[in-house]
């Protein structure tokens, strides 16, 4: 455990099983959010102008005030 950061990480996350478990759960949660939003952003970039959400604004009328209704 050379650096202070490694020591702190060890003391906070790995020293106690309860902290370890909470760390795994929180880490999985954070990773999923980060991974999904990054992947979705890349996907939307690769498919710019092709998906329904890109062309929807052309067809939506004033009557369709609830925007969530025709999302996929």
């Amino acid at each position: 455990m050379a650096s202070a950061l490694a020591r702190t990480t060890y003391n906070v996350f790995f020293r106690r099983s309860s902290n370890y478990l909470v760390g795994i759960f929180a880490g999985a949660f954070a990773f999923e959010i980060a991974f999904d939003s990054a992947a979705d952003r890349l996907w939307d970039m690769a498919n710019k102008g092709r998906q329904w959400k890109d062309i929807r604004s052309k067809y939506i009328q004033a009557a369709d005030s609830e925007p969530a209704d025709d999302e996929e």
Partner: protein
Amino acid sequence: MFTRAAYTTATRAAFRAPTFAQARNASTQAANGAFGADRKAAAAWFAKAAAGSAILGYGISNYVVTDDRLAPVTKAVAESMTALQKKAAEYGIEMPFTVAHAFSTADHGLHPPHYPWDHFKPWKTYDHASIRRGFQVYKEVCSACHSMEYIHYRNLVGVSHTESEAKELAAEYEYEDGPNDKGEMFMRPGKLTDPMPSPYPNEEAARAANGGAYPPDLSCIARARHGEEDYIFALLLGYCDPPAGVNVREGLHYNPYFPGGAIAMARAIYDEVVEYEDGTPNNASQLAKDVSTFLSWASYPEHDERKKMGLKTLAISAMLLGLSVWWKRFKWSYIKTRKIVYKPGKFDEV
């Protein structure tokens, strides 16, 4: 004999598990050792293995299992297979290795070319503007004869139309519903939950109206035909005069992409038969491309989501693969770098 001081410094250091950095270095060395001490030795090992198998293969095929010696064996196998097949056929059993079929494009249809659909790329969705135009082509041209009874108006919502547009489209047709409180069936305007209207009440009516040929339901037509959207596109634009010597029966049309060549459907896609609302040029190939995209979507409505999930799965699996390779090497580094030394001691003679 250990003193306490000697035990805690030297011995514990020797038995302590390697640190992360040591383990990583150790496992790198260990990996080089699988086929030799270093890269050079490993390359030599692979070169020898390749040369050895080449020489062995050449020797076996030219001197041991020669064509002359193999010929009677293959002949005997073929004859016994034929005999077995004949015997089995007497008992009504069809063997999987029956007969060789000659392939003829005249009988099976010309294979369609592979068109460069954007949605064939692994990271591309359908072009939803094209699906929308394709639906218009289906509605104004194809639906005169073809049903699409497994596609409902609600399926268009969020794909090619807004909810209010889909409701308006559905309300253009009347559907039978009921019974009401007097027990009678009644007609009502269509709703989102109604399927695309069928042009004929049943298959018999469809056949009677089309000279005995049944216009297939288009709900899953891309799945149901070899070549999928390539086939649909090629078929729609592939009509031509029959070649010399081919007679097409009255009421049929020649299309080389259709198995047998004679199709009951007449050419339906011409330049400018549909007027697009978004200003896209409405020549025949554009109409065919859009309707093929629409029919492909109808067959694979999950396509966009499936591809996205697939790519995410591959990305996560790649991370996990890297992690597991590292984990294996980390765990094995103790074993790979272990040195076992045999040190003969002095034995007292009894």
